[in-house]
């Protein structure tokens, strides 16, 4: 596996520096692994995202105007340690408190929990919303066991807009919780990415097999099946979402995200979108907007995921607000 790296052990640190270079002055590095917008409005409720690196553009590529105010970056595939989260928290806090918004993985939960305690000890108000959109990872009755996957894109986008207008942290929590509760995703894995430091694949899958509902690190999903045509796959995935406990009826509006896990091409994502749209139109469900491309990745992993976010009159204006970031920009 050829990868364009220097010392693979420095990959995470170098990519964070490169990210700051990408933002070309708009973003500042704070300590070894935290980044924050250089100019944060002095009276806003702050939005902090974070997680392991290696999944670019998330999470740290989601900071920007109308998006997150800061990000805590861990090593490759490793949640950030509490001190990095704490530094990010201090950098983004403008006195109105900080919302932690991240994917529901044990490592992230524990490190952010410790950071939140440290921040509270410093008098910074912190609240947390966990992203658990992956319907394939647990039953609806135990949603708090679900993983966070690509649904974090519309959720962070909406949260960014909400953070710009929320009068306080509680209002932000409630808006973001609504975005989270209205988002469902499911993915399919075709082949693994590789761990930069070892060059080894992140998981194994037979040449003709695909993992329905598999997580972005190879976590078990609904089951391993034989490769199938795009239309069948799209229908199977969409049905897993439609069978979940988020009620979607004729006349409802949804945001659709077709996310590539890395090396799966836009061609494939577009072909899946065509089928997803046809199936939604059949049910009278209206597409409010579409996102498509490699947004939540796991190195050069192949596969894709479908996410739906049901948007009502509260969420629509938050979606419509312009935003700008490496990962997602909206005019």
């Amino acid at each position, binding site marked *: 596996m050829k990868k364009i790296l220097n010392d693979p052990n420095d990959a995470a640190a170098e990519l964070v520096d490169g990210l700051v270079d990408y933002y070309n002055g708009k973003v500042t590095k704070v300590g070894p692994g935290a980044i924050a917008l250089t100019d944060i409005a002095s009276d806003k409720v702050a939005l902090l995202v974070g997680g392991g690196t290696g999944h670019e553009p998330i999470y740290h590529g989601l900071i920007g105007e109308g998006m997150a105010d800061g990000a805590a970056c861990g*090593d490759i595939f490793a949640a950030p340690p509490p001190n990095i989260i704490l530094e990010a928290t201090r950098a983004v806090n403008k006195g109105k408190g900080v919302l932690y918004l991240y994917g529901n993985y044990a490592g992230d939960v524990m490190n952010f929990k410790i950071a939140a305690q440290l921040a509270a000890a410093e008098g910074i108000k912190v609240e947390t919303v966990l992203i658990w959109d992956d319907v394939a*990872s647990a039953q609806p009755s135990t949603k708090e066991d679900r993983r966070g996957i690509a649904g974090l894109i519309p959720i962070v986008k909406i949260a960014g807009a909400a953070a710009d207008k929320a009068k306080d942290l509680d209002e932000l929590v409630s808006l973001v919780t609504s975005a989270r509760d209205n988002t469902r995703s499911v993915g399919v894995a075709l082949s693994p990415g590789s761990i930069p430091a070892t060059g080894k694949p992140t998981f194994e899958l037979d040449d003709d097999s695909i993992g329905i509902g598999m997580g972005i690190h190879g976590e078990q999903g609904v089951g391993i099946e034989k490769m199938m045509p795009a239309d069948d796959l799209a229908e199977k995935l969409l049905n897993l979402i439609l069978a979940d406990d988020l009620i979607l009826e004729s006349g409802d509006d949804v945001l659709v995200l077709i996310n590539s896990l890395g090396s799966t091409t836009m061609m494939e994502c577009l072909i899946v979108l065509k089928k997803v749209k046809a199936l939604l139109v059949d049910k009278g469900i209206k597409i409010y907007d579409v996102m498509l491309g490699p947004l939540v990745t796991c190195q050069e992993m192949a596969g894709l995921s479908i996410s739906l976010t049901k948007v009502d009159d509260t969420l629509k204006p938050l979606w419509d607000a312009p935003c700008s970031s490496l990962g997602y920009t909206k005019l």
Partner: protein
Amino acid sequence: MVAADLRAAATNQKLYYMSKETLSPNEVREMLIAISDKIIESEELLSEADRRLGDGDHGLGMKRGFTAAKAALKALEPTTVGQVFSTTGMTLMGTMGGASGAVMGILYQNGGTALGDADSLDASGLSTFMTAALEGVTNLGGAKPGDKTMVDALAGAQEAAAASTGLSLPDAMKAVSDGATAGMEATKAMIATMGRAKTLGEKSIGHPDPGAVSVSIMFQTASAYVG
């Protein structure tokens, strides 16, 4: 520093291979350096274990953390035992990240804090350490024995320590090491309900939890050190 270095040199030559009834702060420091070396050396084995159940990076995180811990320990002139454990915990916590950064960090930090300003470690201190360590980890992560995490190894170690307060430190540490290893072995038969492996369900059976393997290695090394 000079005194500590002389003591270290003496230890390396001779005392290292003799049983120790109690450990001085500096000996605890040496023990943790030995643990660091062993963990760093086990990188591949630990990552491979994580490739089966998780995302394949457990050894990388542990190596990163214990490389930093070793450096911090080398620079330390400890006056209490707790200080050595806490420094280890803080360093792991601050450099590793991931699930294991939090749990390994808390393990040493909580354990060390519980030892107060004790200036030596004996079998009863070991039990105090283990109880606080286990409590810290379960409070943080919510995992119970049987969930197929490092808590299984840690709980095994803690039970052994609690039952060994009347023994010599070497015997108590041997019991802790055996308890940790038995706890790790037991994870092989379990279905994961915590961490990344939880969605694997029945597929997780047959493989030991990587964090539990780390815990077992740590206390085996400690036992070898106290003799």
